[in-house]
């Protein structure tokens, strides 16, 4: 016993593993109770070894496992001695972690998966039904109800549509005050429903309207919101695992809302698959009246301007996309992509560089700042494959990449890669299709 008191078990010192830090925003520094972490200009931690007590708090908060404990040779010797003295049981000096006490009982009051049904003047946004698909999977795993929230003016028909896509209950607020979407009226309505009925998960489409609404709702409820999720799953504790591109799409992050409810996520259109429609399905409509009046709001929608249909091609809805990048070298060269698209009954899309060069309208842009697409076939022509482009198209069923540079990152996601000159390959493909069709017609 006397020995054990004298020889204190060393706890080690934290150090940074080179190359792993992503400058996430000083989580390690904030977590340190001893002010042992300073951030350098690159946003990486510098550990003051005279202050570090080896408590491991920073290691726990680091999202990329960039920090580790190390022991000096002397400390290792002490550890080894202690280990032989006490036997295997006391061996590895795992720090006693004061596990954050999660108020599970309080979180448990929240049950059910909710999906916000977005619409413009009664016309639903398809992303709402896509979310009912993934929401149904989550609800099944959790053993809870899948519900929808419908808010608007004369929108009861949307309730029935929500049932056909899998919702078993719809919370409906139907009132002229909701004729136009306005942040204040909608977020207050949603918060009213959430506070009353307490769902554990609330999913919203990552559209202009959805992001506007979700940000206000989450702030008002002081709960977590994760934008643009590409993957949603349930962990062993029943918590929602939200995976999304981070750092401009360069990496993926899995994010949790551990202490508050509901767990809120937005998901872009076409990221989740559309569930099957079953018109026979019925459900329960829960009617709630608006907890306010028109006079309560000062924001007015004065005018709705439908965009003139200069370009009525919706790339996000196309089954086959022929997409061009900087390698197309000029606006006029998109004509051959249009020809190929016509042969395939597809549409032409493009990368951001093309929009910035003024060769194609922004509506055709695929990628992080453009549209997310998941067609059956995506043909990338002269697109190098910047990560910002890849995140917008990498879940396409079949990706065909045509590029002169065989090192181009687009080949990393391609099902079929063709290393060659796009101005030779594309015409050759068009010719091949036309030849085969001519041959068939001749038979």
């Amino acid at each position, binding site marked *: 016993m006397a020995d054990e008191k004298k020889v204190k078990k060393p706890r080690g010192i934290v150090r940074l593993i080179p190359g792993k830090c992503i400058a996430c925003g000083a989580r390690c520094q904030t977590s340190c109770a001893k002010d042992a972490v300073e951030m350098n200009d690159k946003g990486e931690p510098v550990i003051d070894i005279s202050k570090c007590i080896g408590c491991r708090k920073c290691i726990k908060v680091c999202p990329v496992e960039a920090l580790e404990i190390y022991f000096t040779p002397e400390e290792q010797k002490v550890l080894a001695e202690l280990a032989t003295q006490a036997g295997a049981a006391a061996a590895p000096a795992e720090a006693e972690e004061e596990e954050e006490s999660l108020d599970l009982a309080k979180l448990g009051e929240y049950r059910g998966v909710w999906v916000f049904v977005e619409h413009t003047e009664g016309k639903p946004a398809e992303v709402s039904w896509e979310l009912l698909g993934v929401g149904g999977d989550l609800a099944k795993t959790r053993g809870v109800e899948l519900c929808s929230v419908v808010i608007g003016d004369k929108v009861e028909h949307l309730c029935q549509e929500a049932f056909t896509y899998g919702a078993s209950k719809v919370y409906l607020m139907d009132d002229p005050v909701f004729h136009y979407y306005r942040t204040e009226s909608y977020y207050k309505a949603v918060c009213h429903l959430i506070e009353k009925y307490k769902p554990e998960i609330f999913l919203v489409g990552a559209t202009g309207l959805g992001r506007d609404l979700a940000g206000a709702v989450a702030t008002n409820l002081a709960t977590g919101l994760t934008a643009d999720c590409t993957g949603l799953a349930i962990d062993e504790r029943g918590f929602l695992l939200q995976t999304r591109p981070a750092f401009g799409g360069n990496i993926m992050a899995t994010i949790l809302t551990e202490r508050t409810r509901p767990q809120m996520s937005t998901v872009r259109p076409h990221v989740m698959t559309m569930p099957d429609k079953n018109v026979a399905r019925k459900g329960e409509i829960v009617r709630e009246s608006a907890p306010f009046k028109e006079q309560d709001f000062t924001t007015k929608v004065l*005018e709705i301007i439908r965009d003139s249909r200069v370009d009525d091609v919706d790339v996000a809805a196309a089954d086959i996309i022929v997409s061009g990048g900087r390698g197309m070298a000029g606006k006029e060269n998109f004509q051959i992509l249009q020809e190929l698209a016509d042969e395939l009954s597809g549409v032409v899309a493009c990368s951001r560089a093309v929009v910035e060069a003024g060769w194609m309208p922004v509506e055709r842009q695929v990628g992080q700042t453009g549209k997310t697409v998941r067609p059956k076939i995506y043909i990338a022509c002269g697109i190098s494959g910047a990560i910002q482009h890849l995140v917008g198209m990498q879940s396409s069923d079949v990706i065909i990449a045509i590029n*002169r540079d065989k090192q181009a990152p687009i080949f990393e996601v391609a099902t079929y890669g063709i290393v060659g000159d796009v101005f030779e390959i594309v015409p050759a493909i068009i010719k*091949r299709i036309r030849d085969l069709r001519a041959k068939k017609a001749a038979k």
Partner: protein
Amino acid sequence: MLIVACIKQVPDTTQVKIDPVTGTLIREGVPFIMNPFDTHALEESLRLKDKYGLRVAVISMGPPNTEVTLRKALAVGADEAILLSDRAFGGADTLATSKVLAEAIVGLAQKEEVALVICGKQTIDGDTAQVGPGIATRLGYSQLTLVDHIDSLDLNARKIRCRRKLEGWHEVVEASFPAMISVLREINHPRYPTVPMRLIAQDAPVTLWDNNVMQLDKATIGLNGSATQVRRIFSPERTQGEILGEGINDPGKVAQLLIGKLVEKDLLFI
């Protein structure tokens, strides 16, 4: 009256590469820039300053070196720059970030009436578009996101009229001051600083508000005030596909191979 432009210093994520061997980010040599969307927020603030005679304050939460980016804002004509920096602010998600920014705006509003808070639509590193709505909700301001044109301000009636861009349509909206608007890149073309302005900005004061100044409850800011926790960060998995034929030497053969594959998989009908 005051316009508060919220800006963020971000790594230029378009220049980040992934190490193909280790799958980690290569941040070496990646410059810090003013978030591109925020350059438009700042520019719009300055245009309103020129047109209506409002004062412009820029605020940014970030590490101490964010001062460099705030000086750039002063160099193009912002009247005042405030750096919100404290180790207690670190590790913040959008909820905890909007807390600090909103409280800073409350601080500014004690001295001068705030007409507008202008944010960029989103940042290029976080891509959430959540901080603007967070600020508006916390302060009870009118919220107008995705603005691509400001029609007019009425300083007497304290109203703003602007146009929002949504999927497939625009809407013209009127709202009362104070309002938070988030702007799209289409709204304007940011100006460049002149040499004399840049020189003046070098010596202009950037006010530091740390938590000694702001006195915020530590449970509401930084890592502790964040409702979301990052469990894991990883590189996206990629499955390398098949390279077809010799595209450079024999385009015809490659086309034949490709069409063969597509027909075989019922993806293309001849």
